[in-house]
């Protein structure tokens, strides 16, 4: 049974999102649990108090304040000057980090196909809501990247970029993440889509993102055959990324041991995310993107 499919842009999975799904996405918006700070007015509360329309607080007037925001009613009653503070509505910086390593070609449809669909959906939601969307496809380092897009009109740029991604190379999330964070000018929402089958440690890099005040959301995508391999006999398993091999005798005992290692792997990620306030969602590539976005991502709190 073939468990690894080579990338094929002509496959049906190349069609990222259908029009009906796009219409549904326009009803959604990205949820940021933190107040973010943007460059331009957006539709998101900023940490800055000021020109927004949503009242936030009062404070004593200080020289230089804009007296258009002095609450003259309070001044008449208390004979003291107070200025009204508003939450400034700013745009949200959303960083989408896609694992485009060779291992993402596994699954039917491939893990990369699901990751691209999710990125397209999340990115489209952000563009519709005037958020700034940045997309980076990483392997052992930052790969192709798409600059910060804003506005619905850039949706086609986003789709085109995602459609051009093909799985290749090795996974090194930590290296890619450090590079992306180093170039990030603003904090925001970081969505990482990967299989996390990374021989390197990436936990420190995720903590670094948290240190940069990025709200981090991990979407863990796995293929069915990675969850439950259907193998038998004496095998020489070759890693599609590293070309390293391991010899196994795939019998029932071996598969039980694999299941134990898999579960331990899952528990480790879940505990790490829970401990550090990182949102985590695990899925298999066979789940429809529409189901994943409209149900699971909303339940997970990434969308509303």
């Amino acid at each position, binding site marked *: 049974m073939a*468990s*690894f499919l080579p990338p094929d842009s002509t496959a049906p999975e190349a069609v990222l999102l259908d029009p009906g799904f796009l219409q549904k996405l326009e009803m959604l918006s990205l949820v940021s649990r933190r107040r973010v700070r943007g460059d331009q007015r957006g539709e998101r509360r900023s940490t800055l108090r000021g020109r927004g329309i949503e009242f936030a607080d009062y404070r004593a007037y200080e020289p230089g304040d804009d007296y258009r925001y002095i609450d003259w009613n309070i001044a008449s009653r208390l004979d003291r000057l107070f200025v009204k503070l508003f939450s400034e509505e700013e745009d949200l910086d959303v960083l989408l980090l896609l694992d485009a390593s*060779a*291992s*993402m*070609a*596994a699954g039917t449809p491939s*893990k990369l196909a699901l990751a691209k669909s999710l990125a397209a959906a999340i990115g489209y939601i952000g563009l519709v809501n005037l958020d700034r969307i940045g997309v980076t496809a990483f392997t052992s380092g930052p790969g192709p990247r798409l600059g910060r897009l804003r506005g619905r009109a850039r949706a086609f740029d986003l789709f085109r970029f995602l459609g051009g991604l093909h799985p290749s190379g090795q996974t090194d999330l930590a290296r890619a993440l450090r590079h992306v964070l180093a170039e990030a000018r603003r904090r925001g929402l970081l969505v990482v889509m990967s*299989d996390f*089958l*990374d*021989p390197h440690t990436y936990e420190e890099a995720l903590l670094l993102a948290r240190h940069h005040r990025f709200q981090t959301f991990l979407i863990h995508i796995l*293929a069915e055959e*990675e969850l439950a*391999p259907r*193998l*038998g*006999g*004496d*095998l*020489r*398993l*070759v*890693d*599609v*990324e*590293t070309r*390293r*091999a*391991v*010899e*196994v*005798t795939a*019998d029932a*005992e*071996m598969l*039980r*041991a*694999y299941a*134990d*290692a*898999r579960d*331990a*792997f899952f528990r480790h990620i879940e505990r790490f995310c829970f401990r550090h306030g990182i949102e985590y969602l695990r899925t298999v590539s066979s789940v429809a993107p529409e189901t994943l976005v409209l149900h699971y991502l909303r339940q997970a709190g990434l969308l509303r």
Partner: protein
Amino acid sequence: MTLGSPASLWGLLAIPLLVALYLLRVRRREHLVSSILLWQRSASTRTGSRPWYRVERSLLLVLQILAVAAIVAGLARPAVVGRAPAGDDLFLVLDASLSMRARDVVPTRFHRARAEALEVVARLRAGQRAGVVLAGPRPLVLVPLTGDRSRLRAALGAAEPWDTVGDVAGAVSLAAAQQPGPRGRIVVWTDAAQGGLPALSRVAYRLLGTSDDNVGITRFRVLRDPGGTEAVVRVQNFGSRAWDIPLEVSRDGTPIYRTALALAAGESRTVVFPVSGAGVLRARLQIRDALPEDDQAVAVLDPTPLPPVLLVSPGNPYIEKVLALLPVARAAETRTADPSTWAGFGVVILDRVATGPLPPGNYLLIGTVPPNLPMSASGVVPRPGIATWDRTDPVLRYVTLDDVRVDRALALAPEEGRVLAEGRVPLLWAYEGRGVRALLLGFALEDSDLPLHVAFPVLMANSLAWLGGGTAEAGAGEILQVPAAGAEEAVVTTPEGRRQRVHAVDGAFVLPPFIRAGLYHLASPAGDRQFAVGTGSARAGMIRPGEVPGAQVVATEIPATRIPAAQVSPASGSAGSVPDALLTRISLWPWLLVAAIAAAVGEWALATHRRGAEA
């Protein structure tokens, strides 16, 4: 559990080879996976990569090993020994060969066999019958089927081995011919040293013996020729190890010859040395082997081994000259055929003299036919020629008649006896019966050039030796007829000193078969004679236990010198043990063959299934 062919177990070495080949031929299918991270973390992955783990886990290999092991084990002919169901009748056959006197089994193989047979008799069920056959040179039913245990015990107790080769196969056939019943069984105690045992159903063999360690004298005789007298000693090493053996020959107790023989395994050596005088020669090998009985031999050194001869002839210079040369005890000549004067001679030569009926005695008849012999002559045949003659007969041994011409001969018409040479008519005829032993030459010596040939003195010597009762040499198991020379009774003294009285029958003493090798003494009023009896066969000293047919083998087969005597199956002779003779061997090889086939089929099915699954 017994093994019929333990050497086949060397085939088990194929199993490590099979495992090695399996390890070498591991062909893992290459399979691309997105990551080996989780496989590496699987604890079993590391163990699974160990070669021995693969071996342990490989059912295919296990089945292959099972198949090979089953085949090899089957080739080793394993069997389990169990108590056989009680049969109707039981025939006990004891090998009475010289090799059964070997002492590698304490006290001897024969004693052990007899003890086991007695134990079998003691354990006979009520109403069960048994018989005893002794496999001597001529098989002998000691006791026919009977339920009388005392008779069986007595027969077994009196049974003795012979100093020759026993006819075990004949004894088995004889026992089978006694019709021991549909469920009857025949149990044979033997060392199978001579091989050739029949694989009959219902026949169980108890193999005895642990060693082939024997050197023996296979021939010891005195040879005479005009140049002098020589003793010939032939020594054979029947064992598988080399020996340096001192040989000593004495005459009447006085050593006359000593030498040392270096004999490799299986090698034989013949020693010839001159002797003179008269007396009893004894040869002895100074060796301690498993069979001391053949380490010594006797020969009679008699300057006149041929009997006293009376020549009744009108005159024959050829015969007179030959008699002067041959070592006859006494020679006399007369022209008158008076039977009353013949009594004192061992052989009477009647040369062309007409006689009346012959009195009992030994006669060489030349050109004359007495009336009381089953022979008639009807005229004369010119140039009858000599077409054939029996070279194997003692009378014609070393006699060549190729170029002998005969001008005329009597037209003989024998009614009995045997023709030893003939052309168009019988020319040499031998007869024994009615107290007469006779050789008849159908032509006068003057009518032939036979006296001018070397064959003539040889023929005369052979004829006188045969007519006089043969030489003073015989083999154990042989029956010897000695001319009575007018005596009615004689006493035979065996090498052990036992005396036995024999009576003359038809003018000859028929001596009982010689059981033991050694010096026998015949004393009669006509004179005393000594006979040197050797082992009955040159192969009698071969004591290496052989193989018995695998169908119904009893107890363990014990190879030769590699196994010490202490490894004799304890059940075979120890008191109170179950007699092996009541045990039977159930061959396991058919089951092992089935197991091998099942393992092979299982392996094939599993391999096919796996390939199908992988496809």
